């Protein structure tokens, strides 16, 4: 099966065609709001006072986002990031992104004020979006796709139908030679032994078990029953009783294919296939990490049965990767139908099988890849992103 995408110099294929401006802050914010076709990251994670490991995570995230196939070209500026740490040096970020062969420009602001740089940025961005717009979509095989998934506000429909439908899609994509990413380190506790059995080798199996062990140890240090934190109250209100139950339902979204490796947050997979990502569930964090790893499209599989007053139609945390909202819960769909892209509650209603719903979702993904907008993409609203770091702030 095929989709219409944009070919990049490194051989990857974009499903969108943005000019990315990083790091976040006033310069990127003003330029991306003023010039059409631009994206930026809005986050408070600048790296100051953070460990080397966390600074590398921030750098990896920004570099990965620049390398994402949905990005045609990148503008970087040296203001507002890192307080001088070498990992976050603007030229280092630029050099690494430039390895993709795409156009990377650094705003040289040595003698400029911030507003001078805004003007320079606007002029540069206008020229770069015009240049990007000259590229035409053409037909590519679906093996060029990389998809990331999160399940959230999970309820018992997630584990029974919603996640298995995503699992069907993951199996199909991986079977065709594509790449699929799943994660959420807390939500494998109680199910890690099942994932470990699907690892391609002993080393990967150990790495999966280690993620669960380390996450559980971190949780225990707090001195609370993890159930007071996760499953979150909306999970419990949706019928999920324990973290183990949540985890066993959550892993269904990974399908049944062998797991090729364990990736850090924002780390790019070395090959094709299914990967587990050691990331955190937060939706303003996880999709940014998937996009930095190279995902062109991200999926939010929503339970929603226990949601009370929440708004679900957030801006895409993937920044450059469009987000599709899915649910299997009939009540959620009746309530949030105008915010949800795909409904698999038909399986619960006995109108469709998991395979049939999975085929529909696969086709929607290909459509989205070819340029069809998701519901979230129709809005200009931008929520702040949250880069997943693990060390104390000092």
């Amino acid at each position, binding site marked *: 099966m095929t989709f219409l995408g944009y070919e990049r110099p490194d051989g990857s294929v974009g499903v969108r065609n943005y000019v990315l401006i990083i790091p976040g802050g006033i310069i990127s914010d003003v330029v991306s709001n003023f010039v059409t076709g631009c994206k930026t990251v809005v986050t408070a994670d600048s790296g100051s006072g953070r460990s080397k490991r966390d600074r590398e995570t921030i750098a990896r995230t920004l570099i990965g986002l620049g390398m994402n196939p949905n990005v045609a070209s990148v503008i970087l500026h040296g203001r507002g990031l890192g307080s001088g740490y070498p990992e976050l040096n603007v030229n280092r970020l630029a050099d690494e992104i430039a390895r993709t062969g795409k156009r990377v420009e650094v705003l040289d602001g040595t003698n400029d004020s911030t507003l001078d740089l805004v003007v320079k940025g606007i002029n540069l961005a206008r020229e770069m979006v015009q240049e990007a717009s000259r590229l035409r979509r053409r037909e590519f095989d679906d093996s060029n796709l990389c998809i990331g998934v999160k399940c959230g506000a999970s309820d*018992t429909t997630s584990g029974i139908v919603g996640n298995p439908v995503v699992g069907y899609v993951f199996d199909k994509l991986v079977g065709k030679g594509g790449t699929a990413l799943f994660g959420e380190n807390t939500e494998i506790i109680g199910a890690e032994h099942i994932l470990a059995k699907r690892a391609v080798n002993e080393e990967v199996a150990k790495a999966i078990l280690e993620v669960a062990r380390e996450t559980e140890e971190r949780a225990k240090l707090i001195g609370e029953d993890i159930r007071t934190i996760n499953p979150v109250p909306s999970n419990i209100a949706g019928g999920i009783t324990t973290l183990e139950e949540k985890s066993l339902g959550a892993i269904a979204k990974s399908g049944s294919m062998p797991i090729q490796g364990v990736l850090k947050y924002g780390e790019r997979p070395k090959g094709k296939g299914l990967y587990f990502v050691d990331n955190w569930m937060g939706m303003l964090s996880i999709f940014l990490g998937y996009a930095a790893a190279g995902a062109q499209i991200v999926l939010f599989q929503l339970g929603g049965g226990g949601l009370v007053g929440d708004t679900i139609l957030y801006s895409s945390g993937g920044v450059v990767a469009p987000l599709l909202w899915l649910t299997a819960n009939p009540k959620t769909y009746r309530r949030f139908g105008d915010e949800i892209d795909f409904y698999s509650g038909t399986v619960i209603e006995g109108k469709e099988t998991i395979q049939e719903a999975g085929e529909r979702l696969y086709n929607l993904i290909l459509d989205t890849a070819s340029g069809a907008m998701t519901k979230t993409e129709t809005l200009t609203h931008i929520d702040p992103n949250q880069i997943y770091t693990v060390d104390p702030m000092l």
Partner: protein
Amino acid sequence: MLLSGDVKIGLAIKSADNVATVLNDVSYGDRILIKFADTTNTSTIISRENIPFGFKVALKNIQKGEYIIKYGEVIGRATEFIGEGHLVHVHNVEGLRGRGDLKMVGEKN
């Protein structure tokens, strides 16, 4: 009254499960047809309390301390006796993992 309610549907994932997820809002006394995802076998139980859509019903008597099995796996442990047809949730089940509230490491099991 006990047998006069509507027939409702419950889904168990594996034959070994001792709970099923109800796919309708269930009232006290409703007959619940239990389907299993791994076999064509079905069974019927009578609900002993109101159970909302998506919540779990006990498929047999579960003793205090006994494991709760869903997906063919342990999802927790009963903190009190749970009779067949009763709601299984946080009021009568504890998780075994991530128990930072328990003093000794390893005490959880």
